[in-house]
């Protein structure tokens, strides 16, 4: 199997089976570009130089103002080339859209401003782990606004839409890491909404999957792992760790056991139960004076992670 190639002047590395096909078309069009650009520029510049007006009353030396032959030529030659490019492009597009039979399915959820990937065994992770040399099909949906899943090295991209499913598929060539971008503008942290595709060899993948891709690493305390999740799940965008600092949401400093009032005037005490609910179903209780802007993390945070987060929060005082 081919290996990930180095990046060319125009294109990033070719890390998927489809990447080469895309680049071939790209190079073909690029050649056409060079040819036509040179023709036009040379013609123009040459004429300007040759027929430059020397004296003020110099007149044109030809009234050559139409030629069916020439005009016909530069209607049909470009048209022909365009049709070639069109057919080539469309065939390629079908390859990009239709995943091979028996591709591995991973369901993807996008939301402001995080990705989560759910495997058939139910585990949910925030970086994408895929096996090399095996077609992978992502079935994607969004929880809020439009997002777009883009891996330059794989040359794949598709918008992620609420209330509908879209898919992309790719077959990574070799183990390695590649960048995932969001390419549909989605607000404040649009440009921060990037993750990594971690391509593993078939064996590693199986092994890692069995013990959970993002389970707590051995020897790491739950609290420490919770701190990692705090930035990984991008809680950090809305919740500060400094005492009383207000971002979009309230600060986490001393949150455990905090007392206060909700929007509809009920008193609350932020015990484990309350915090768990606020993460899974944030709209149930909104702290007075804060916007209803937190997305639900139900289905994204499993119990271990939840415990870790709580453990981490308890250390914040």
């Amino acid at each position: 199997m081919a290996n990930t190639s180095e990046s060319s002047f125009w294109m990033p590395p070719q890390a998927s089976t489809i990447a080469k096909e895309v680049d071939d078309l790209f190079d073909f069009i690029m050649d056409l570009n060079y040819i036509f650009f040179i023709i036009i520029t040379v013609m123009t510049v040459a004429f300007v130089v040759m027929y430059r007006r020397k004296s003020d009353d110099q007149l044109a030396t030809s009234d050559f103002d139409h030629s069916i032959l020439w005009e016909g030529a530069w209607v049909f030659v470009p048209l022909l080339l365009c049709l070639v490019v069109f057919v080539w492009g469309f065939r390629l597009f079908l390859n990009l859209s239709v995943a091979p039979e028996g591709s591995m399915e991973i369901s993807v959820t996008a939301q402001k401003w995080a990705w989560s990937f759910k495997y058939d065994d139910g585990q949910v992770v925030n970086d994408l782990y895929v096996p090399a040399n095996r077609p992978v099909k992502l079935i994607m949906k969004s929880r809020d606004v439009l997002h777009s899943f883009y891996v330059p090295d794989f040359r794949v991209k598709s918008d992620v839409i609420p209330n509908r499913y879209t898919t992309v598929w790719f077959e990574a060539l070799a183990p390695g890491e590649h960048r995932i971008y969001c390419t549909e503008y989605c607000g404040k942290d649009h440009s921060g909404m990037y993750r990594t595709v971690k391509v593993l060899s078939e064996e590693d993948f199986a092994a890692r999957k069995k013990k959970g891709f993002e389970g707590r690493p051995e020897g790491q305390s739950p609290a420490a792992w919770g701190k990692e999740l705090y930035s990984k799940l991008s809680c950090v965008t809305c919740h500060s760790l400094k005492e009383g600092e207000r971002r979009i949401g309230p600060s986490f400093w001393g949150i455990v056991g905090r007392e206060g009032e909700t929007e509809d005037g009920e008193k609350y005490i932020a015990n484990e139960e309350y915090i768990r609910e606020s993460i899974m179903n944030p709209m149930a209780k909104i702290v007075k004076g804060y916007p209803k802007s937190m997305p639900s993390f139900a289905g994204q945070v499993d119990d271990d992670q939840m415990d870790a987060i709580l453990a981490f929060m308890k250390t914040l005082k």
Partner: protein
Amino acid sequence: MSETQADPGYHVSDKKETNYIHASKGLLSWILTVDHKRIGIMYLFTIFATFALGGLMALLVRLELLTPGETIMGPETYNRVFTLHGLVMVFLFIIPGIPAALGNFVLPLMLGAKDVAFPKLNLASFHIYIIGTIMALWTTLDGGVDTGWTFYTPYSSTTNTPVIMMTLSAFVLGFSSIFTGLNFIVTIHKMRAPGLGWERLPLFVWAMYATAVIQVMATPVLGITLLLLIMERVMGVGIFDPALGGDPVLFQHFFWFYSHPAVYIMILPGMGVMSELITTFSRKRIFGYRAIAVSSIAIAVISFLVWGHHMFVSGQSAYAGMVFSFLTFLVAIPSAIKIINWSTTLYKGSISLDSPMLWALPFLILFTIGGLTGIFLGALGTDVHLHDTYFVVAHFHYVMMGGTAMAFFGGIHYWWPKMFGKKYNEFWARVSAVLVFLGFNITFLPQFVMGSRGMPRRYYDYTPDSGYQIFHQISTVGSWVLLLGMLIMLVYLASSLRSGEVAERNPWGARSLEWLTQSPPIEHNFHEIPTVVEGPYEFPLAGANTASEGMDVSGS
């Protein structure tokens, strides 16, 4: 430029009368004027201002991207700034740019008419434009919107920035655009001077006609789209809102049904100006008059069939994608014809490099690049990779800025003597043209590269390890060169207004009707309506003692 060879057979009077500028005094006489020339001038200065505003926003965007992380502003501010840049440049500068400013001034003159068909409607359209502009500025002071100029739902229906006000402003501006277009269509149909048949119309008029058709046919759809968006926010009608069972992709169909043809509202007038400049400054009949005239109309019609190429990865059906991609390649052809015909027109001409030509020739080069790179985006397979990256950004800036804006400034330099009866400093004009050309390329060529390497657009930030920084830096430096060129132009044009030497009636030796009347023209344009006996580009030929017989022979 000797008068003798200009327009034989026309009755030409050189006795000076009070021109339209001094016809009446006082601010009110301008604000309430129905004179198409004065309205054109007022548009011109407003549009200079909006261009400056949009440009400032662009500079801020470039400056922010100079380094990764926060350079001068935070993400919220950045999102508002690039949104405002888009909105101002599209709705306030480039769409009204050539039609409303240059078109208003020149079109009736070119037709040998006393005014446009509906002068009061014309004035109304200007006032509406001002109102729309004020609303847009108000929204900006009110915090600004962060949706991007495309207003995609559901983001635009959920963000808590003053979207409604901004949408209303775009809605209002739409009316101004419709009225201008409507006015021009009727004017071109009904107000042509005796003998001025369709085949004797200057190609600028053909281009304006095509533009007007698009303005009238497409803009109402923008109107209803924005109304529906407002309804989403006010009443919560869920047509575009997935949370209510609506379809967000449908909004994109609605939006691009207008906004793709709008791209041609932007470029067609530029092409029109090009045809005038190329012929005048090579003193030669245009190559393939019919081909260019017809291709303008063809572009106007086909432009309504291709909007889906903005949506190849939007979750639109692959078959729709196929159809749109195919039609997109069809629309490439008419533009190709124009390009090659212009450069063929230069063949054996008598080419002067006066400043207007120094804006026209860059147009030829830059628009070629813009057009050619469009092929990547029209082809489905490559567009998947390039969509919503800086490659797209570079592409449409080459078409819009490198194309339309260049033609706009070329047109201004070309008709400036006619508008104000003053000359500008030729030397500095050439310097500025060259600087802008260089600065433009330094700014946008790197964006092609980082785009195809995967840098997404509308990004506030990029990681240092991604290797995009060097391109961003080159690009930012280029934007400063661009700025310098523009500033120089501002200075010498201003000084020409104050103390420019008097320009004669027809400084370039052009052949179309607007050069028949004095500079600046009298209030009613012509002492007597001219009777047209030949085509617009009948330049005398070396060795031949009579100009050949009008357009009838050309292109047939």
